[in-house]
């Protein structure tokens, strides 16, 4: 189990790096928004791995809250971009 956790955390760090690269490069605002949305998913994924390692209930609350906050943030960026243009 410990080996699995370490390997999964390393893979998650690589995924997060790729998402950050797209968020920095991405030519338009929706590109950056979808990259940050994917970054939130990678983060929640990582917290899920830690929760599975410890069997810790506190981290489960964090998973719920961060997941829903990511949705609200994407929604806000989308509405704002639609009224302002996405250059």
């Amino acid at each position, binding site marked *: *189990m410990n080996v*699995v*956790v370490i*390997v*999964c955390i390393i*893979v*998650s760090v*690589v*995924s*997060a790096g*790729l*998402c950050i*690269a*797209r968020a920095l490069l991405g030519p*338009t605002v*929706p*590109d950056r*928004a*979808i*990259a940050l*949305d*994917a970054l939130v*998913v*990678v983060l*929640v*994924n990582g917290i*899920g*791995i830690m*929760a*599975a*390692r410890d*069997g810790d*209930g506190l981290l*489960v*609350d964090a*998973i*719920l809250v961060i*997941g*829903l906050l990511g*949705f609200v943030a*994407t*929604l806000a*960026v*989308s*509405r704002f*971009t*639609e009224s302002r*243009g*996405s250059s």
Partner: protein
Amino acid sequence: MIADIASALLIVLGTLLTLVAALGLVRLPDFFARGHAATKAATLGLSLTLSGAAIQMSNRGDVAKLALAVIAQFLTAPVASHLLGRTAHRTGIALSEHTVLDELVDEPDPTTVAKDLK
């Protein structure tokens, strides 16, 4: 023992799917392809990882909370992706040159139709 193996298998699969999502985000040619890769792969990957975590939980309430998180992810991820895609299409983001068909391009713009009627 079997629970540990099942949990580890689910977590590895989920993490690999989020890696696929991140790879698609970097390598695919235009916004719409990237959004498709990120949303689909990430939704399934997160659900698998959280299911694997739910197996490890000793408290039954934590399992319920994880199930709630999976359901919320399944409901909200497609909505967020659809909203971003709609915004991108309306603000005129360029499609990749490999695009075969854009079904929304012939849709009459409601504002111009209203002007024509006047």
